[in-house]
């Protein structure tokens, strides 16, 4: 049975990934092509023209082209910050869950400590420390949120640690690293994939939040967050400039959330109807 959520989520994600990947081919203008004589043009349906279908910003830059390039940044940061957090968190979580004892207590203690602090604030502090920019934002969001993955991976590892196939591998003399890599990880991947999908929207929103406060992607490179930050002063004069990047952000986050719900129903049907949520992003 096809899940409508899975299909609509996948379509939205594929569309945005394609748009982001082929941004230079799809955008009619470069994101920083300025023409002050065309500044603050409304979208085509609100009195603008088709040369700039979604209007222009205060520097006369084409909004649609900037949104297209912005998709690339948002998805890139979302994906790679989840990869960084996932790699760190899953490694620590599997190790803690499999080894148990003091190592487990230490790892989970550190995770609990970090939980006691809003992660967006920690990401703000880290980006203030490293400076803004693409790589730093990815690393900051990853470092600020590894513990959610660690907890999930640890819980899953605990549930398979005493499985017969693990005991059999141990009886055959397999080392801990081999057991973790070959037997534990593949068996906890399905719930972790679902979990990871749920974390993606919050990272996309978190990047927008960081860029909105000036600590994320720096202009003139467009991200939906910094587009919102730059255009908020024109809320009265040109509300579409504020509405459109936020709409793009909402639609892509909605798509990934739907994809997560659909994947959860498909890969882990016992969890159907369960509320799974990522961290708050913005």
């Amino acid at each position, binding site marked *: 049975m096809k899940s409508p959520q899975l299909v609509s989520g996948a379509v939205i994600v594929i569309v945005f990934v394609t748009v982001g990947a082929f941004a230079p081919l799809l955008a009619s203008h470069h994101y920083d092509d300025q023409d002050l004589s065309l500044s603050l043009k409304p979208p085509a349906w609100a009195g603008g023209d088709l040369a700039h279908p979604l209007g222009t910003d205060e520097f006369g830059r084409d909004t649609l082209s900037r949104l297209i390039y912005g998709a690339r940044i948002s998805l890139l940061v979302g994906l790679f910050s989840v990869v960084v957090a996932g790699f760190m968190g899953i490694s620590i979580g599997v190790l803690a869950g499999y080894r148990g004892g003091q190592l487990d207590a230490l790892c989970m203690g550190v995770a*609990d400590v970090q939980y006691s*602090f809003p992660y*967006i604030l920690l990401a703000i502090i880290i980006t*203030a420390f490293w400076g803004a920019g693409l790589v730093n934002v990815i690393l900051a969001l990853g470092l600020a949120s590894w513990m959610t993955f660690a907890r999930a991976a640890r819980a899953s590892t605990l549930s398979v640690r005493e499985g017969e196939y693990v005991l059999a591998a141990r009886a055959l003399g397999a080392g801990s690293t081999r057991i973790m890599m070959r037997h534990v990880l593949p068996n906890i991947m399905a719930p972790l994939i679902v979990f990871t999908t749920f974390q993606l929207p919050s990272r996309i929103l978190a990047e927008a939040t960081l860029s*909105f*406060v000036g600590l994320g992607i720096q202009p003139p490179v467009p991200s939906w967050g910094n587009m919102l930050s730059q255009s908020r002063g024109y809320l009265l004069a040109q509300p579409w400039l*504020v509405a459109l990047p936020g709409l793009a952000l*909402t639609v892509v986050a*909605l798509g990934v959330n*739907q994809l997560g719900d659909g994947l959860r129903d498909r890969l882990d049907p016992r969890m159907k109807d369960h509320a799974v949520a990522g961290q708050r992003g913005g």
Partner: protein
Amino acid sequence: MAALVVVLLIVFACLLATGDPVEMLVPPEATQADKAKIRHAYGLDRPVLYQFGAFVWRAAQGDFGRSFFSDRPALVLVLERLPASAELALASTLIAIVGGVPLGIVAAVKRATIVDQLVIGLALLGQSVASFWLALMLIFFFAVTLQWLPVSGRESWSSLVLPAFALSFWLLALLARLTRSEMLEVLTQDYIRTARAKGIGTGAILVRHALRNALIPLVTVTGVSLGWQLGGAVVIEAVFAWPGLGTTLLEAVLRRDYPVVLAGVAVLSALFIAINLAVDALYVYIDPRIRLGVS
């Protein structure tokens, strides 16, 4: 307590690595001697571990030092802003509970109907909207276009409506989803069937029998989120010029005002730990089996 010291150590290390705060305090024409004098006055020329040890020792006595910029005690600056943040956090959490829990119950009772689909859709939307964008849109519609509510500030109760709603939407959506999933599980239990067989009304069954048994995860999530609403509302506070802890911390981070950042982090972490303890205590009232140690 150990958690508090570790959080402070992490933030302290981050702050030290952000660069020299003295550079932000002095005019460009300041000489090296001027800078050295200021560094010495604030103890910034001492070894890092000494600085941290001295900080923890003073902090334990309630002294977080003075702001590099306003020269006022850092803890006082933070505590002055706390009531505004607490007001916003409590109001938004209340909106989320009052809106999210009934929506979740209705969705569970009307499972697989259009009502259920609408609630699921709303919950998905709530978890996909950036709260600062929602805030800007609310300002546009309700403050600028309709002029029903103020754009920013904290002058009257009406100033609270827009920031509280913008901050609450994510939690409202999460509570709606969580209530729905917990209620779906509880509603299939034998004691619900028994209550129905005894002729108890639907409302009483839902509130007294079902919701009470679904409360623990809801209380946990609400408790954790309250901590977030207190300290993580940085951007919402900035958008509405709300004079809370978030904006103070953001400004302090950007200006490398260490004492204020560390005082803010300590206060927030202590509050978060206190909220978690309160949530643990609340479990006992919600579910007497926890007090009696019955599994």
